[in-house]
């Protein structure tokens, strides 16, 4: 119990920081565990030959690894704050390995099952479904554009007409009589409040499932481009800051070149060329990373220019350490704090950029889901605009808040802020 006290004590001291970190980790864990959160295939199925995991069978090795990471990401706030670090540190990998072993046994031949097909063939077998029992590409032509089911306006009777006439009904009688709503096995009842908590889109796909998988893609883009920018920025920034004026000049000109380059154009260029094998998530992250590193690089260059003359660096040189050793052991740790702050801010900016590009129809478009793309699909319906936009804003706020707290945490100049 003593450990718990240290964790709570640590959390109480910097509540906003830990709240931000928890929010970021929760969102990314949700994204990583999307197959378990929103899936039309059951998670567990009682089959004669022994239990099957239809939701996990079609996943390839990389998707499985991401899924395994989900619990680990979720507990980062707990792990980072406690002195359990060592105990937790060893605990999780062991748990993950066991899970992987069990899983490997259960993976049958990866049969490709069309969306919604499991529900049709379920029959009498008992099965456990994901919290959101809809697939991100599972269409239901009997309930297109359905408002969130917890609204009164969303109630539909047996024949498929909306109870409240004025919402969808059409006096002219021109419209074909709608077919009754098809409720498949494992799904909540027709008018259950939580059937479609966020409503459906043109093809009757559940918006909640689309938002979960959309968040998975948007968060992946945010994180990937931030890391890409971090690596590139650190590399070029330190070169510019540490080495002679010549490299500094070259890198500064490169920075100017990137600043002047129209980002939107690069995305259009890459997406239209590179959308072959690689999924658009990585191409867009690459592009955003390629154009985002200038912020980190400029920051690092300034820090290194300052540190180059710092006494302790001269002292280290005095002791005969090699240039690289000084950079890695002394200069970089000092400069790293502001760089990490800049990176977390850039993660938020990258997500906003991706959503803007997808909204214009150039980034992640159908059928891949992205928060920006979802809004583009239904600008005339409030729920299609508000919910994806809100989740995106929440994710960006989480990243920015984390960045802000990190900055205050490491900023010696603001008195009395030491953790």
């Amino acid at each position, binding site marked *: 119990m003593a450990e718990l006290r240290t964790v709570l004590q640590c959390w109480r001291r910097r509540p906003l920081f830990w709240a931000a970190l928890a929010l970021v980790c929760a969102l990314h864990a949700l994204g990583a565990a999307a197959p378990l959160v929103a899936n039309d295939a059951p998670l567990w199925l009682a089959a004669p030959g022994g239990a099957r995991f239809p939701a996990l069978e079609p996943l390839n090795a990389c998707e499985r690894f991401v899924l395994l990471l989900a619990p680990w990401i979720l507990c980062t706030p707990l792990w980072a704050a406690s002195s359990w670090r060592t105990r937790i540190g060893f605990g999780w990998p062991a748990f993950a390995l066991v899970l992987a072993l069990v899983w490997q046994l259960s993976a049958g031949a990866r049969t490709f099952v069309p969306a919604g097909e499991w529900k049709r063939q379920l029959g009498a077998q008992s099965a456990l479904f994901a919290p959101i029992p809809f697939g991100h590409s599972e269409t239901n032509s009997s309930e297109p554009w359905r408002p969130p089911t917890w609204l009164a306006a969303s109630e539909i009777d047996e024949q498929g007409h909306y109870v409240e006439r004025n919402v969808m009904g059409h006096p002219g009688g021109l419209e074909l009589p709608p077919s009754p709503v098809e409720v498949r096995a494992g799904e909540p009842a027709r008018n259950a409040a939580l059937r479609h908590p966020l409503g459906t889109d043109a093809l009757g796909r559940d918006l909640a499932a689309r938002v979960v998988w959309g968040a998975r893609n948007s968060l992946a883009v945010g994180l990937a481009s931030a890391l890409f920018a971090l690596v590139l920025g650190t590399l070029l920034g330190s070169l510019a800051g540490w080495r002679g004026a010549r490299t500094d000049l070259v890198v500064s000109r490169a920075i100017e070149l990137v*600043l002047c380059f129209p980002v939107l154009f*690069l995305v259009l260029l890459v997406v239209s060329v590179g959308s072959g094998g690689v999924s658009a998530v990585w191409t867009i992250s690459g592009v955003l990373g390629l154009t985002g590193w200038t912020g980190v690089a400029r920051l690092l260059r300034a820090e290194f220019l300052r540190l180059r003359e710092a006494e302790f660096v001269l002292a280290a040189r005095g002791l005969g350490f090699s240039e690289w050793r000084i950079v890695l052991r002394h200069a970089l740790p000092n400069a790293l704090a502001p760089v990490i702050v800049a990176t977390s801010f850039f993660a938020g900016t990258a997500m906003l950029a991706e959503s*803007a590009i997808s909204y214009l129809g150039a980034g992640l478009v159908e059928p891949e889901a992205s928060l920006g793309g979802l809004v583009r699909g239904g600008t005339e319906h409030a729920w299609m605009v508000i919910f994806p936009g809100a989740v995106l804003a929440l994710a960006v706020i989480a990243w920015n808040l984390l960045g802000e707290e990190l900055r205050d945490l490491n900023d010696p100049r603001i008195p009395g802020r030491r953790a």
Partner: protein
Amino acid sequence: MAAYLRRRLAWLLPSFLGITLVVFLAVHLAPGDPALRESFDPDAGSADAADIERFRAEHLLDRPLAVQYLHFLGPFDLSPRGHRWFGGSGEHAFGGLLALDLGSEIHRPHVRIVDELGRRLAVTAPLTLAAALLAWGIAIPLGAWSAVRRGQKRERALALGLFALHSLPGFWLALLLVLAFGAAGLGWLPVLGLHSAGAEDLGWFEWLLDLLLHSILPVLALALGSLAYLTRQVRASMLEVLAQEYVITARSKGLSERVVIGRHALRNALLPAITLAALILPALVGGSVIVETIFGLPGMGRYAYEALLERDYAVIQAVTALSALVTLLALLAADVLYALADPRIRHG
């Protein structure tokens, strides 16, 4: 100071040319071909191969990339109507970027790019300037106030509010503004274009009023995004300055809090803000595709994006050259302004 300036200016031209070259290569290597223009005419059939070849020849698209780049760069016009030295008819010997002749658009040969840029800037520049003034006008006092009041309840609430504002996606913010103030919502403000129908036969005052009414929402959409960021920047540098000793010296002279903050603290805090202010310049030219699409404004952002979709190479290269030049000048101006403002550098 002068030596520093000379070195930066010396590097300006090569950087600028480097950028135009990179953009040129990216544009021409990208998929898509301007020769394949709008939809085919459903009645008459399609342009046959010969016509497409003629179109490509006319715009030198069939010539090697190097020739095309030199033609774009100028000062000699390498087309069949160009300079005699290069086998042209001599009718239009000089052209291209260095001869300040941007030529005309590929898909609309009757439109000179320079004129269109003028029209588009006339829409984008004032809106962005108004948004920048609005953002800075609010950010400076707000940032200073929240730095001085750090830790109080109101200040924390404001900080969180700014946070949310800074994190909202641009298009979402614009859509919400339209839903809120457009006809579907309160119906107070027009949501489209810069003028309502028949505005040209209004009196100059109504015309101006009509323009202002139409530009409120776009300016708000542009300003809100940067407002939050600028306020936090001013707050951060203000906090840094308040921790300096000379602020206490000022107080020891018995100066009022307003003078201490206004004359001593703010002057130092705004130094880093100058570099940010210089970055408004590229935005003046760049415009914003999102805001211009949603509010139906024929600005620079949309001009570049639509040219991009139609692969109008002449327009893409002209627009990126202009924004590259302005960005480079802005970066230079930022450093120069910073040096002028900070005596420690000016009198080195």
